[in-house]
């Protein structure tokens, strides 16, 4: 450090200081991201704000319409209301379900089981494969006549199994069931979290006579809340953007039962070319996601436990 401080003085004032060199190098390093942020995030966001006040389809002249897009969207466009309700149902049912399931799997794997790597692989693999292929696979699994799920239900005596993605009532539950196949990613994170809880905590609790449930309630759960919090936030944000499954498996049907917000935005923007209107929809969705994300953040003070909080 001393040499750094001396060098500029020794070499004369037109040499830039070590400190300034580090600054320039730092900015050069992050330059790709900074450019990308301006070009692909900040710029488009500002443009999209503008666009949402226009009637724009890029075939005819764009017309400034003020808040008309938003007004129509919030007050008159029934389909948008349906899409938002569906998406909210999906997010608020599927994501908590994922948390519970992933936690249960992680706790099972944390019992010093033999062959941990094999079990972990089996549960994690479905989380790695995603996209169209998986949607096609689940169309087949849900097939009402020849699919294995309905077949198995018939075998155990349910003569009239649901039509799953072909039924208005069961389509959304079907997509939620399907989504639980991918909880392996969260499970991995929880497992790592569980392994990080010091054994001494459990030993101390056992000496005090705490049973399994008390140990879970008062040690495991509090220690895991930061991890749960993080996966809850990311899970909700992801779930609000659900698209591929609806697009490939049900096209939003039957009777709009699985129409999601992003699917409707896609249709408006890229099939009907109402770019201004679709931008307004995207902004409404963004504000909703932001609202719930902030809500979870605000609530975190009440239930998320950070180690070291007591030390402060």
């Amino acid at each position, binding site marked *: 450090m001393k040499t750094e401080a001396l060098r500029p003085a020794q070499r004369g004032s037109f040499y830039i200081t070590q400190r300034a060199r580090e600054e320039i190098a730092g900015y050069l390093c992050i330059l790709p991201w900074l450019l990308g942020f301006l070009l692909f995030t900040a710029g488009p966001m500002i443009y999209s704000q503008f666009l949402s006040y226009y009637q724009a389809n890029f075939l005819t002249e764009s017309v400034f319409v003020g808040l008309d897009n938003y007004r129509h969207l919030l007050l008159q466009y029934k389909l948008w209301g349906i899409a938002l309700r569906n998406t909210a149902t999906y997010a608020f049912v599927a994501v908590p379900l994922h948390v519970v399931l992933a936690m249960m799997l992680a706790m099972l794997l944390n019992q010093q089981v033999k062959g941990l790597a094999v079990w972990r692989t089996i549960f994690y693999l479905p989380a790695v494969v995603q996209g169209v292929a998986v949607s096609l696979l689940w169309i087949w699994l849900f097939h009402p006549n020849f699919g294995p799920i309905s077949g198995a239900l018939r075998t155990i005596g349910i003569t009239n199994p649901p039509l799953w993605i072909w039924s208005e009532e069961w389509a959304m539950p079907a997509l939620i069931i399907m989504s639980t196949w991918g909880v392996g990613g969260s499970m991995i994170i929880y497992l790592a979290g569980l392994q990080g809880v010091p054994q001494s905590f459990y030993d101390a609790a056992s000496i005090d006579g705490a049973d399994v449930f008390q140990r879970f309630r008062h040690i495991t759960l509090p220690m895991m809340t930061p991890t749960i919090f993080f996966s809850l936030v990311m899970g909700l944000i992801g779930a609000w953007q659900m698209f591929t499954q609806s697009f490939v498996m049900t096209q939003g049907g039957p009777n709009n039962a699985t129409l999601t917000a992003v699917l409707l935005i896609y249709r408006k923007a890229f099939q009907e070319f109402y770019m201004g209107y679709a931008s307004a929809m995207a902004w409404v*969705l963004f504000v909703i996601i932001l609202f719930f994300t902030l809500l979870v953040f605000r609530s975190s003070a009440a239930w998320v436990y950070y180690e070291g909080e007591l030390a402060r």
Partner: protein
Amino acid sequence: MTQLSAPQEMTLVAREAMIRRSKAHASVLRAVGRAIIYLLLLAGSSVYLFPFLFMLSTSLKTLQQTFVWPPQMIPKPLTLENYIEGWNLLPTASFYKNTFLVAALNITGTVLSSTLVAYGFARLRFRGRNVLFMILLSTMMLPGQVTMIPLYIGFSRIRWVGTLKPLFVPSFFGNPFHIFLLRQFLMTIPRELDDAAKIDGCGYFRTLVSIVLPLVIPAVGVVAIFSFTGAWNDFMGPLIYLRRLEQYTIAMGLRMFQMQGGTHMGRLMSMAVLALLPQIIIFFFAQKQMVQGVVLTGIKG
């Protein structure tokens, strides 16, 4: 030790027996507990594995066999017909070629840019660093829909719609998730090493390339795998930007298959198997690194 009187001796024996019994009781309980755990694991993993096995099994069946209940998990006869017919029905080889091209370019772009940016954030001090890093973190939570439409308009202005460029060029500007992952990894590596290099007269970029990079190779591997998976699974991007069949990636190709012969489940499943195969292979080779990456950032793959 003095001689114990008879009654005392008896109680001692009885107590020992009791302890032995309660120990036995506890070990029986533990054994039952273990059995339940393994039963649950077995049941759960069967459920999680079944879709894969059923997909594979269906892909090896003739059309008639797919309608048989109960389904034969190992079909008789086994047929590769679906794979051959499916492969030739659409330009599947070109779907593969395009997907691999996009994935390879995404890996290159992401690794080059994200490593550089992560190094900047982790090691160099500059004004506004913390603010900029907070902005980077918040963009991780930004839903893509807000930028989707303006980006499409922008790309169509420069005539990139209908080409593969929109699917890989942005990756050269760093991906927030991967920058975060690499930065977290860099923070775990002691600074003394690059300080030593600096004293030896290494510039920042020399330090990055010759000192830091070799140490972060495992994390770079994780980033490469995740960007491969991301590019391989991407559906919305190709759906919006690709126009002609010969540019289609696997995801779009599968969608074509579905629209052209969605009822022939055997053929559809054979194409799904082919689409998932590269990912499954990579997963088996790189599972350890992937788990490490997921754990490091708390982000799902």
